[in-house]
């Protein structure tokens, strides 16, 4: 096919430093949204399981709302709303970080909730019986096991998150995809750049999903 001989891969080398800055933002965004999302998500999960019903209801509303709107709309919402509330203009990158943390928290919370529920209730009673407070029972007994049991699922969600960060395109944040687009315009070689970007995403996601498979076989849920 003539196409492959027409491909000009020589434009990739000079644009690597530029693509690297884009990839760095994509990875940073993923890591911040992952850590923030898991912490917030765990709190949300605890709130949903709390016996205090207004708190449980508020948490469940938040989670269900976030899960029923397209991520793109959430990105646009936050980009519009945050400057209105704070009164200061906000860069696309900062807005993306806040949005993804808040959005992913909803998905991570569902995973953590399943994880908490995978720990037998008897262990909670046992904790209380030896005089532990709620926080101690959760922190020392339930959450470590919940986290361990759900590690493969949490990682799978992180792979999805990594792919979804490409949607910051909608507000013009400079991630890997945007960098590839700009480089493609500069060298007038968009085809090569899109293929190269797709390849980077594929290699990273595929390797991570192999890791998840490996983890799944190592971590059996202990009951």
């Amino acid at each position, binding site marked *: 096919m003539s196409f492959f001989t027409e491909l000009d891969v020589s434009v990739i080398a000079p644009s690597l430093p530029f693509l690297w800055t884009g990839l760095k933002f994509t990875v940073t965004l993923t890591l911040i949204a992952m850590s923030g999302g898991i912490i917030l998500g765990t709190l949300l999960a605890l709130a949903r399981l709390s016996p205090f019903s207004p708190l449980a209801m508020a948490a469940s509303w938040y989670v269900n709302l976030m899960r029923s709107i397209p991520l793109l709309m959430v990105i646009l919402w936050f980009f*519009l709303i945050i400057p209105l*509330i704070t009164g200061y203009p906000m860069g696309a990158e900062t807005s993306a970080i806040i949005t993804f943390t808040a959005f992913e928290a909803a998905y991570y919370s569902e995973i953590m909730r399943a994880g908490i529920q995978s720990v037998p209730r008897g262990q909670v009673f046992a904790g209380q019986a030896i005089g532990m407070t709620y926080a101690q029972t959760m922190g020392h007994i339930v959450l470590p096991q919940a986290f361990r049991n759900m590690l493969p699922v949490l990682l799978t969600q992180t792979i999805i998150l990594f792919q979804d960060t*490409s949607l910051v395109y909608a507000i013009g944040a400079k991630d890997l995809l945007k960098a590839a687009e700009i480089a493609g315009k500069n060298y007038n070689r968009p085809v090569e750049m899109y293929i190269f970007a797709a390849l980077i995403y594929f290699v990273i996601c595929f390797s991570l999903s192999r890791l998840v498979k490996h983890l799944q076989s190592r971590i059996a849920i202990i009951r």
Partner: protein
Amino acid sequence: MNYHWNWGIFLEQVKGGDETYLNWLFTGLGWTLAVALSAWLIALAIGIVIGTLRTAPSKGLAWFATTWVELFRNIPLLVQMFLWFFVVPELLPREWSLWVKQDLPAKEFITATLCLGLFTSARVAEQVRAGIQSLSRGQTMAGLAVGFTLAQTYRYVILPMAFRIIIPPLTSEFMNIFKNSSVAFAIGVMELTFQARQMQEDSEQGIETYLAVTVLYFICAFIANRGMAFLEQRTRVPGFIASAK
């Protein structure tokens, strides 16, 4: 918060046109439904075949199906949209390439539907495979024992059960496809998200615009959910699947 509310904005005319903003939103809803529903048909048709092939005894077929799933699952949807829109036409022979770029009617819609359909087919395939593998091996053996060929066993024993089992996860995939269709805005399909951005820029009434669009997405997801719940109830095998929610 300093915001000028204007709930009447939907009935006002767009700048430089004789439509109202409400017209824009309904056009958007129409394209969203068109993309999501056509893509769902593609996803079901291909997903069922690929998912079944993944359980096939033939190494070659199973490898092909696995590659298919990994390829579509590990590249972001937005990147896939750009690949289909900007890259694939270049891969075609010259005359076809020219035809796609210049004469293909509703090019954005067809590209987006194909892309979303293939992307979702990989996810449907995973559910179909999980459904087939959740059945006990005894069912296949029983089918073969009464003299069915392997193909007949799949057709009359395995697949009818597997389809019923995977209705709940397919329900969430069906709801996802409406959400994912929003990505089609990036290649210029005039669906809801596209219209939301356009109306927000044109009217400067962002909150009202986004609220209306969010509600429309919500309604789509809700109807999809109820529709699948109805299907689940109608196709239930008595005494087998205790999933009635």
